[in-house]
């Protein structure tokens, strides 16, 4: 919020120009807020660890979506309010009055609308992910730069040189951060290449991918975290996708991922050849366990959501965790169960009780059926002891059902850790 308000505070801390009507002043404050919110987008979407901290990238991106929509509303409301309050401002839209000024304003409104529309309806528009990503980065950069230029040239609240400098620094820093994300970071990744060593189809319409570090120590991560993966000769590729690690943290130089075939990139994974170069940016995410906490743990996974939970279970197994654990693993059919044999083996080797739940079971299925709901949790789990921790990863409908069910069981929100799929 401080970042979003900063341009307004800097602009208003300068001289005190003659007050205008309420609508005009509201238009001015909304415009200054607009440039602050737009600059804030560059910071919150840039996967900066110092900023994401304990919030989590998936939460931050949800925040980005909502405040991005708000920024678009501000971009529209700013000129409308100014012109409604003082019709003379209509001249700003007249190219014969000032071509550059009018073109800049038209560009900002159209580009911000394109940014929002392509983000909300990318799939429906048939826009490929990598092109959307390039367009999103380019338009974001240009919109913020054009907005800054406009604010500096208006000369009402930004007439003083100190105000101009303050505004330029405030908005310029996020622009530099965008360059760090898109240029400097991939450049640094060139020093830590990886190689695809195994590509294998796994149940549930998914692919398992193994990577090996080439000439470096690999990646330190906590069980449950994810990384952004790029495949190909260069880390500057537009195809960068987030995947959870299924491997356990102790194996720094070897990473394992499983990805469900839901988009163009994941559908192309089975065709990736061993030996292909790969680039790993991460780790990210706060969805993780402390295997040595001693607290009893409940894992609830839906479909491919088993991937980060598999990393947690493998980690617990490697460290010889002795506390009771429960795994509730929901799938459509028995054939969709990933890591089935390994989970059975883990359950024999450590105090892990596994319950498979199928929504479309075959006639011979003896286990639980339907979805993970309150009554199933009641049957499977012991009463909450006030210390047990719950780790949820699955599709939004499952999460939306399980989270309230846990609350109804008296589980404190601070002991429920969840990760949703719809990151990008």
């Amino acid at each position, binding site marked *: *919020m401080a970042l979003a308000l900063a341009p307004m505070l800097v602009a*208003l801390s300068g001289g005190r120009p003659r007050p205008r009507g309420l609508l005009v002043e*509201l238009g001015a404050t909304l415009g200054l807020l607009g440039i602050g919110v737009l600059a804030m987008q560059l910071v919150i979407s840039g996967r900066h660890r110092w900023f994401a901290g304990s919030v989590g990238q998936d*939460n931050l991106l949800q925040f980005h979506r909502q405040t991005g929509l708000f920024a678009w509303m501000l971009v529209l409301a700013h000129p409308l309010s100014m012109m409604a309050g003082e019709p003379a401002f209509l001249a700003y839209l007249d190219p014969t009055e000032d071509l550059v000024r009018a073109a800049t304003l038209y560009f900002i409104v159209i580009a911000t609308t394109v940014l929002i529309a392509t983000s909300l309806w990318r799939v429906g528009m048939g826009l490929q992910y990598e092109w959307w990503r390039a367009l999103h980065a380019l338009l974001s950069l240009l919109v913020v730069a054009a907005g800054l230029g406009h604010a500096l040239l208006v000369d009402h609240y930004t007439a003083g040189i100190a105000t101009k400098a303050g505004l330029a620094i405030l908005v310029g820093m996020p622009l530099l951060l965008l360059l760090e994300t898109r240029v400097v970071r991939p450049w640094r990744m060139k020093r830590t290449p990886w190689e695809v060593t195994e590509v294998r189809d796994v149940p549930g319409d998914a692919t398992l991918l193994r990577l090996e570090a080439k000439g470096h120590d690999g990646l330190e991560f906590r069980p449950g975290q994810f990384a952004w993966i790029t495949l190909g000769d260069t880390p500057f590729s537009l195809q960068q996708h987030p995947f959870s690690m299924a491997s356990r943290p102790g194996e720094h130089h070897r990473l394992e991922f499983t990805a469900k075939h839901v988009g163009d990139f994941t559908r192309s994974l089975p065709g990736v050849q061993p030996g292909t170069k790969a680039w790993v940016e991460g780790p990210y995410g706060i969805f993780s366990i402390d295997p040595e906490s001693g607290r009893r743990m409940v894992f609830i996974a839906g479909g491919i959501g088993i991937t980060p939970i598999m990393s947690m279970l493998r980690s617990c197994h490697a460290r010889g965790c002795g506390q009771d654990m429960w795994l509730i693993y929901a799938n459509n059919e028995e054939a969709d169960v990933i890591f089935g044999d390994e989970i059975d083996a883990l359950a024999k080797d450590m105090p892990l009780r596994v319950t498979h739940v199928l929504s479309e079971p075959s006639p011979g299925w003896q286990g639980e059926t339907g979805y993970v709901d309150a009554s199933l949790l009641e049957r499977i789990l012991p009463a909450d002891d006030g210390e047990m921790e719950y780790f949820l990863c699955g599709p939004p409908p499952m999460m939306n059902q399980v989270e309230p069910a846990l609350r109804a069981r008296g589980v404190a929100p601070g002991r429920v850790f969840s990760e949703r799929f719809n990151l990008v």
Partner: protein
Amino acid sequence: MLHIFARYAGTAVSVALFCIALAVAVVIAAA
């Protein structure tokens, strides 16, 4: 459970920011 907060955090912050901008505009216009 942080998601429940996150689901509405962007909207809540947006509303708060708009209210601040509106309040500032009222103060300036009334000055």
